[in-house]
């Protein structure tokens, strides 16, 4: 662990389109950036045993998750030539059709931003202790399983 400040990643509830638009707008002063890459994870209304998923409720081992996010950031900055990077993940309830993960990488040229974005999303899914509970219309639920 470096002593760099740990950035806030978790957002209570869905990540709104206006939050994402603001995040993009904030980069208009950073004129050495030539490419942004954005990944948005959206809650899908999967049908499981004939029932439709209406929301996912996210919980996390916050302390460990924050460390992991920090670690992933540091590795991505080392591995790719990035101007900046932002990661946001929802906690609590997010309805189907809403955004729960927002990864935003920026670089001079597109290759770094695009590859870093994919790298970060994969690492988040594999390494960050977050659990999604898929909730159906009748309030029953199952614990989500990520596809590799």
């Amino acid at each position, binding site marked *: 662990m470096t002593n760099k400040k740990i950035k806030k990643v978790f957002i209570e509830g869905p990540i709104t389109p206006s939050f994402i638009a603001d995040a993009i707008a904030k980069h208009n002063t950073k004129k050495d950036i030539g490419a942004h890459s954005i990944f948005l*994870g959206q809650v899908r209304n999967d049908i499981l045993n004939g029932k439709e998923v209406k929301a996912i409720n*996210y*919980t*996390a*081992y916050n*302390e*460990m998750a924050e*460390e992991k996010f920090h670690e992933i950031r540091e590795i991505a900055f080392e591995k790719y030539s990035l101007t900046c990077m932002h990661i946001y*993940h929802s906690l609590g309830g997010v309805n189907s059709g809403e955004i*729960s*993960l927002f990864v935003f990488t920026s670089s001079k040229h597109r290759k770094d931003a695009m590859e870093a974005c994919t790298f970060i*999303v994969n690492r*988040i*899914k*594999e*390494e*960050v*202790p*977050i*659990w*999604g*509970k898929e909730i159906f219309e009748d309030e029953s639920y199952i*614990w*989500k*399983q*990520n596809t590799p």
Partner: protein
Amino acid sequence: MKIKILAFGIIADIVGKSEWTIENIQQTDDLKKHLENLYPRLKSMKYAIAVNLVITSGNFELTDGAILALMPPFSGG
């Protein structure tokens, strides 16, 4: 010797709680055995154990005041 245990996701559902303390457990294998006796469903489950925020592998020696987390496969994103 006291160990604080945190349970997440489906494991918290199975054990019916998300945080408790336990005494007289020295190693992670002992804890697994103890919990699997109490909650047989855990036997067929895949889960990782973190001690003081670090994921352990094999049988891990516990120290007094350790915080141990029972973590089923992650499903963020």
